């Protein structure tokens, strides 16, 4: 379904160039439930945005359902986003002045559906995510979990084959997180492909595959059994305490230091940000947390 070949993404130009994705190759089959993990700034969101057609790769080839995406113009990309991709964001991204029902019905508006049909479909979708009681509420009147459920309903309204969730539980408490993940799990069971970014190793138990990223590259990719935390993630969970006073002073999180590191740093990375990472990586390698 998704086929990325040597996809790179550069931001800025000249001395200020930042390499967000570094020749990433990734294949995802239809019906997979993929968790993407990695420290902040490793390029997870950029990867999601490129897969979801919100952004374009600087180099490389991206095929979605056998279609060469890099050649599409903005309007063609918008139509694919509308019909084939559902987005779920960390900050919900619901329009604040619209009711929950109108928010959920929004993608159908751009499809040209009549108001009555649109609202009926949206109402049915809200019922499926257990939010029908709140369809006339404004987003500001909802809890985080409820808002994310509404966002999921919006993502599902066009029956897209691909659901992309960028840290969907990032702003939620544990109950809200569970609710959202159960919902995504339901969506997956219906035959959809789900990609989600998370920092929480515990949530990998919902996934069938976990991809680990670091500094714009994929450093590990493993299949997991549904209902079980991935072995790598489990190791991350329990090896966390290994921090030194220096690490704390430098503000490096336990999770980051515990993460695996790519054996050879890519020579193309020359930016300040990347150099900073290189120093951190050096420190981690001393701790021998190689997979």
């Amino acid at each position: 379904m998704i086929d990325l070949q040597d996809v790179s993404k550069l931001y800025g130009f000249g001395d200020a160039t930042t390499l967000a994705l570094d020749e990433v190759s990734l294949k995802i089959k239809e019906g997979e439930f993929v968790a993407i993990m990695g420290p902040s700034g490793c390029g997870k969101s950029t990867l999601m945005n490129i897969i979801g057609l919100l952004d374009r790769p600087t180099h490389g080839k991206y095929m979605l359902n056998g279609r060469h995406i890099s050649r599409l113009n903005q309007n063609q990309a918008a139509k694919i986003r509308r019909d084939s991709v559902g987005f779920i964001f960390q900050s919900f991204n619901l329009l604040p002045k619209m009711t929950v029902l109108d928010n959920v019905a929004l993608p159908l508006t751009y499809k040209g559906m009549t108001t009555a049909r649109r609202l009926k479909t949206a109402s049915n979708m809200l019922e499926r995510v257990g939010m029908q009681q709140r369809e006339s509420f404004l987003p500001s009147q909802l809890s985080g979990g409820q808002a994310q459920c509404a966002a999921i309903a919006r993502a599902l309204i066009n029956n897209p084959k691909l659901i992309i969730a960028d840290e969907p539980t990032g702003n939620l408490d544990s109950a809200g997180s569970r609710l959202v993940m159960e919902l995504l799990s339901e969506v997956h069971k219906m035959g959809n492909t789900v990609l989600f970014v998370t920092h929480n190793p515990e949530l990998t138990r919902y996934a069938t595959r976990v991809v680990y990223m670091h500094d714009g590259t994929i450093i590990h990719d493993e299949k997991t059994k549904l209902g079980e935390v991935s072995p790598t993630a489990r190791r991350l969970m329990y090896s966390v305490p290994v921090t030194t006073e220096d690490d704390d002073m430098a503000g490096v999180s336990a999770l980051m230091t515990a993460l695996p590191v790519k054996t050879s740093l890519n020579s193309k990375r020359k930016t300040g940000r990347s150099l900073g990472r290189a120093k951190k990586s050096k420190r981690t390698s001393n701790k021998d947390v190689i997979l």
Partner: protein
Amino acid sequence: MKTLAYGHIKTAIGSVRANKSRSFLTMLGIVVGVVSVVSIISIGEGVKSQIRSQINHYGRDLITVRPGAETAHGTFTDIKSLVNINHAGSLTSRDLLAVEHTQGVAYSVPLVIVGGSVNGGDHSPGSITVIGTTNRFASALNQKISFGANFDPANNAAPTAILGSRVAERMFDDPVPLGRSFTIRGEQFYVAGIFDDFATAPFSADVDFNNAVFIPYDTAQSISDNGASMYEILVEPRTSNHDDEMVNALTRNIAKARGGQHDFTVLTHAESASVTNDILSLLTALIGGVAAVSLLVGGIGIMNIMLVSVTERMHEIGIRKAVGATNRQILMQFVTEAAVLSLAGGILGIILAIIIDVILRLSTDLQPVTSWQIVLLALFVSMLVGVLFGSAPALKAARKDPINALRNE
């Protein structure tokens, strides 16, 4: 597409409502523009229609002879004869005779202005024009005498007067001051009749007959020692539809009487009114053009606010694009918003212009006519201004990269 347009309009109204004071201030430019353009055109049209109704009332066949030569375009070379008809006229009783002897003339009516003050009555009447004319004056202009009687044709030198309706109101407390006396140049006159209201048109070159006192022609000549100036001769032809021939014949005869001089003008009544009409059209167009500049300023205001709105709502644009809005759909959303804003300004402007029209009708002689064509045109133009000036900000919104727009919190 229909649902989408409805959605855009709903969003646009919501956005206008959400920022009421800002929207109102933005609209203000359009409101001022529409009010001024609509009011000025309405006043111009109103005056023209008053002139038309005056022509219809006086009769289309009536021919007027005035002093002052005419140019090829029908305008007077002597501008004074246009704006100040009370100046010393150069028509004489020989001209009158020439007119009367022209073939096809049913009758002619001389109009002479008598200088000097009018006194007596219950109140000082202020500035009043005294006109000497014959008893045929009323029938030439199809004018009714509401009270009293016309001049006695047998006694053309009687000291009687017929008052214009406004003069009667101003000079006397009696509602019908028939038989009351007053003086003109020291001579005593009696009120014999009171004219019904004359159909007048503002800015018209004609004397305001409602504000005039009419005395018999011979009396006028005698009290002014034959010094009264004849400023106009009204000619009623025997048959209609021969205006041009009649005008030519009159011109020939009068010129002969004046020794070949063409220092006078013979016009059908419609032509004489069209002079005023032409000047009015020009004035309306000029002032309307100046007022239209404020529409332009209003458009710039809309563009400014739409730019602010696009910047403020960049995140919203990002969300809409993420869920599948195409560039065109975003463009249409913001163009619709600008159009709704300017259309609302247009509607408000038209309402204000109608209120101004009503006030003018009640407090002045003007009778502005706001036709549905002007209203539709104003609405169309105001919407066009919105669409034109809203396009640039809308294009900015539409071209925004979805991911960059989403990052804009």
